[in-house]
């Protein structure tokens, strides 16, 4: 299935960020950190998606063993998490065009979490 592992998310994020050729503009650790932030946002917006972690802390992923570490996320919302990773990454850039792209990604993330039409 698509978007199973941490590496899947990072690879797909690089495609959307147009950052597929080394040396990368966004490092693996930055993108993984964005994914961790995304999980915190998901906890706020759609708690049932991380119900397994109600009695423990939300997992924090690292760049270690990325291709074998699965990300526990319902298949319906994996693309949303991917959009969050991209949006958060583009917030770093200070160009106007990048700001707009960041807003698009982050708004799409929120819209997909809360509505059907997105």
């Amino acid at each position, binding site marked *: 299935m698509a978007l199973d592992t941490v590496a899947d998310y990072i690879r797909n994020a690089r495609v959307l960020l147009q950052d597929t050729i080394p040396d990368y503009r966004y490092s693996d650790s930055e993108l993984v950190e964005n994914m961790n932030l995304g999980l915190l946002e998901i906890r706020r*917006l*759609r708690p*049932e*998606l991380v*119900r*397994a972690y109600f009695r423990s802390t939300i997992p924090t992923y690292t760049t270690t063993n990325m291709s074998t570490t699965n990300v526990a996320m*319902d298949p*319906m919302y994996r693309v949303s998490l991917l959009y969050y990773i991209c949006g958060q990454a583009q917030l770093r850039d200070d160009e106007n065009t990048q700001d707009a792209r960041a807003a698009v990604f982050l708004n799409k993330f929120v819209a997909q979490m*809360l*509505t*059907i039409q997105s």
Partner: protein
Amino acid sequence: MTADLNRLMDNLRVRLPGATDEALKLEYFSTMDQFFGATNIWTEDIDFEVTNDNKTYYVTPSGVANIVRLMGVVNSDGVTIAALMKVPGEITLVDYPNQSDTYTLQLALTVKDPVTRDGYPEYPDWILEKYGVDIIDGVLGRMMSQIAKPYSNERMAIYHMRRFQNTIAIAKVEAQHRNVYRGQSWRFPQTFARRRARAW
């Protein structure tokens, strides 16, 4: 039960785009708890030994279930015995038994944790077979009443909950009649009765 459960879950998945199975199971449990608590449809008869020097006895359901209420107690002759249950499972007889005997009580039950490995509550199969379509209404109503979800819909939540409440009322009456069509819903005035019959 698996086939009926699969059908129920498929119906819910189709009608609630964006809903996760985890959320559905959570509300499914709550729906069944509400259903059983209001209808007394799931009952269990339990025999227990009584002695003439004790008024308090403890009983537990045989399966994974919570006790909702005590439906009644009879002695070995089928005569109703006055009893209370202030705490579920703790039966207090109003009077000491005249002699050692085997009493039978009936408990109304509801679902309880732990659920099955798949996360579904356990209860008798026939209830899902009979009320499956109506249980869907209950889960839909609860899901749609959640705030800020893709499937939130106040108007439809009210619609489905109203249908579910109707089902609860019907199921409650059918349970009282023991699923007998035109079953007697009244009892002869007790002053005419020579001996009190079973309470349930």
